[in-house]
């Protein structure tokens, strides 16, 4: 249950003690492009990738953290630890992985690891100082997973930036994402091709500071 005393303490911690090493999490449903965005950020600022990506859902099944990433914008610097999290889902069926030509054994193993990944993502939510919610802008944003993630972040008073990903695709609808969550700052990006990343970093500064 959200605790107002803890919220206040976390706020003070963020404000005075830990500002140089804040933790920014990438959260969202599966296959929205969290790891692609993580790689884009680390490639832009460290020259290397941090996560593996795949078209098969639940590719990221463990928390992956990259420390001390320094982003610069308009002469300002922001240093943070970036946390790439497994996608949150309400159901996991190993048979869904068989479509991607995995063996039954591989599919079952992937499903088992994926359930653990979802649990881990949820447990880490409390330790985040800021969260980038990565949504696939070609998909209806009014899904319960999206609403539950954002509702939990709001209850914990964690700053949120919505990255509406895959704007390079024809079906992308940024306005629908913005309309679904009007109380939060949204930015349309293509993490794969690096489109609109300048605006993304600009927004990130606004949300974190």
């Amino acid at each position: 249950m959200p605790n107002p005393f803890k919220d206040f303490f976390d706020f003070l911690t963020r404000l005075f003690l830990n500002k140089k090493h804040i933790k920014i999490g990438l959260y969202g449903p599966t296959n929205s492009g969290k790891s692609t965005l993580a790689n884009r950020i680390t490639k832009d600022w460290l020259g290397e990738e941090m996560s593996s990506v795949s078209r098969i859902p639940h590719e990221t099944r463990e928390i992956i953290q990259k420390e001390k990433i320094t982003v610069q914008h308009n002469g300002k610097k922001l240093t943070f630890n970036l946390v790439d999290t497994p996608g949150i889902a309400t159901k996991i069926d190993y048979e869904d992985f068989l479509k991607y030509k995995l063996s039954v054994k591989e599919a079952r193993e992937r499903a088992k690891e994926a359930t653990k990944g979802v649990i881990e993502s949820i447990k880490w939510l409390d330790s985040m100082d800021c969260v980038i919610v990565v949504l696939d802008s070609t998909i209806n944003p009014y899904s319960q997973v999206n609403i539950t993630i954002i509702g939990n972040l709001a209850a914990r008073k964690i700053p949120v930036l919505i990255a509406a990903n895959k704007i390079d695709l024809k079906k992308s609808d940024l306005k629908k994402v913005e309309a679904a969550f009007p109380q939060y700052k949204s930015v349309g990006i293509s993490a794969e091709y690096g489109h609109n990343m300048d605006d993304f970093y600009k927004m990130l500064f606004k949300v974190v500071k």
Partner: protein
Amino acid sequence: MLTLQFIPNTEIANLDQESKLRKLISLIKSDRILVLEGGLSSYEEMQLIERTMEQINKEFRGIEICTVSSEKRKTEFSTKIKEAILKAFGYKSGLTIIGPASIVKEIRRDPTKIELFAVNKRPRKK
């Protein structure tokens, strides 16, 4: 055959978090689609997702869930007063629909409507 069970707020309002989750999961695992009066909070939904993930196996593959909530809704001052009075008498607005993923294929929502799609299980021809 689909079994839809309505759960009035009075039935779960006095349960602690753990008992509430246990009761809901037990009903979902008995293949019922639940309609909860009052709805679950975002925190409770996240807890439910976490707990159901712990129990996924060959038979139980998770849940489909959808909440219609009045939380954070922009309302007029008079409406807020009415809601506060109703809340004081135990009334809670909103509702949550939850079903096992083996029965509920998808709950689709856009701002104006909610559609529940059940899995079409036709008997196989011999």
